[in-house]
């Protein structure tokens, strides 16, 4: 059976202007317990690649520039 992609509004948002992943920072990607953040090949900034979030906060708390915001996933908001 063929696969279709499924749209979802992701809870973790990164402010590209503040994110320094393009300078080599990977803190949020490193600390995430669910391993759902990645650095974009196109923008070289961090983003949420997989909507599998425990809304736990290490990404936001450990980000050195305050670029990451954790929102409550829509389904339980």
């Amino acid at each position: 059976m063929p696969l279709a992609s499924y749209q979802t509004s992701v809870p973790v948002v990164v402010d590209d202007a503040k994110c320094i992943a393009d300078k080599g920072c990977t803190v949020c990607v490193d600390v995430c317990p669910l391993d759902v953040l990645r650095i974009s090949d196109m923008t070289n900034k961090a983003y949420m690649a997989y909507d599998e979030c425990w809304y736990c906060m290490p990404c936001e708390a450990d980000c050195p520039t305050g670029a990451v915001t954790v929102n409550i996933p829509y389904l339980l908001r």
Partner: protein
Amino acid sequence: MALDQIVDGLSEVSCDVLVIGGGTAGPMAALKAKLKNPKANVVLLEKANVKRSGAISMGMDGLNNAVIPGYATPEQYTKEITIANDGIVDQKAVYKYAQNCYKIVEELDSFGIRFLKNENGDYAVKKVHHIGSYVLPMPNGETVKKALYRQLRRARILISNRYMATRLLKSSDGRIAGAISVNTRTAEILVIRAKAVILCMGAAGRLGLPTSGYMFGTYENAANSGDGYAMAYHAGAALANLECYQINPLIKDYNGPACAYVAGPFGAFTANNEGSRFIECDYWSGQMMLEFYNELLSGKGPVFLQLKHLHPNTIEEIETTLHKVERPTRGLFQQGRGVDYRKESIEMHISEIGFCSGHSASGVFVDDNARTTVSGLYAAGDMASVPHNYMLGAFTNGAVAGIDAMEFADSHDFAEFDAADVAMERDRVLAPTKREDGIPPNQVEYKTRRLVNDYLQPPKVTRKYELGMRRLAEAREDMQERMIARNAHELLRALEVQSIMDCADMAAHASLYREESRWGLYHWRTDFPEKDNENWFCHTLLSKQNGKMTSEKRAVEPYVVPIADDEKDLYDKQRIRATA
């Protein structure tokens, strides 16, 4: 090369003691093993990153079970936990924990973790349990992981992040020989030979589906998918009392604690829709959960945690703790709904089911030295069978495991495993990556967990369980024959689904075996509604024998601390009775 792209690779390393899981018990086990023999190699393997992994990822608001001299005695604590577990406890391990935990508190204090003290400089212990006082707040509880990490670095523990262990390796004579793991970002296989292995892999927290429908909105850290239970099972270790589920009272939809352990000592309480108390004690026991469940369905639900009657300064203090530690997004959640604790009570609900000895009594069977039934294999923390052990139990029993495992490693050479076992496991692990077409892991997982909710959630009905097992077997066939993983991250999820499926099967099997009701809501069987001490005052041990899931009875060890007849049912009296 891009992350998540699948790489073909297999390497092998060896160490004296391998600790799997870097949450709470694991770091302490690794530390104690290394301090026991500084020349030995200790590897700490972690599926996520030790800096922020496990149940205490964002810290913890306090110790829930500290036996502090002057406030409680090991005898008193052992008695309370025995009664809370309807008597099904091997007291030796609980008593040993109770004796050792104060030393661990002092050690954590030396790591820089602070505990609340009163004006006289004594620990300010609070009462939450039914009988004794064991709750000790941690004013800088958000720093726990950082403090632990510093100790690991100082002791030169070898940390391997982003490796998921999948199976244990054993020698032909049944001794532990190591583990097989897979890199969660490249799918490369890493074989680790070890003289002793300690499993500290947390709860099975992704078993039931949260009522929000969001698969990762679980009570437990959603990374805790029950991998440790599955690995222990496939290695032939016995698992104890898996029918004693974990079900917790949580903030509805948010699915985290509200948290009565923090707010209760200040005067907050659990109330029904009339604003009345209906339970005597907010300590999480199966008996309390049964009253909670009954109230929800009685027409007097919803159930709330009420603190609006408290002084504004008190509410502010509670709020600061709730919104800073353990689950700090609680504040964001309440803000989004416009809930102000000063004006409105917190709507509560009951969680999905799981396995977790942190709050109940199910887990890989261990003795008072944290030894499992497999030689050289240990377990500690939420996945080991020492009941109600919470964070301090994970630390204390992790320490016990670390020391004993290093003694074992010092007196044994490496056990030999069969290379064919590695080849077979590699094929099993990578199978979903070899398919061109199939069902993605998230769909298999959703279906499995939805079936868990539909059929396995208490009240447990035999006919429902039989049907549930048939449906789960069909889902298992899909998982084994058709599940597809297109990158390393999907493979991680695909492997987790296999742990979840194994845990679902074990939960069903163990529940059908115990033909009585016990532990309140945790094991309420409608076909056997009474507690049956004559036939079932025993542990149940589940294990894989000749490839088949098997359950058997195991006698409760003679008590170290006797329980008087009039104390045995103290936890059965949870409902507040109308007084004349």
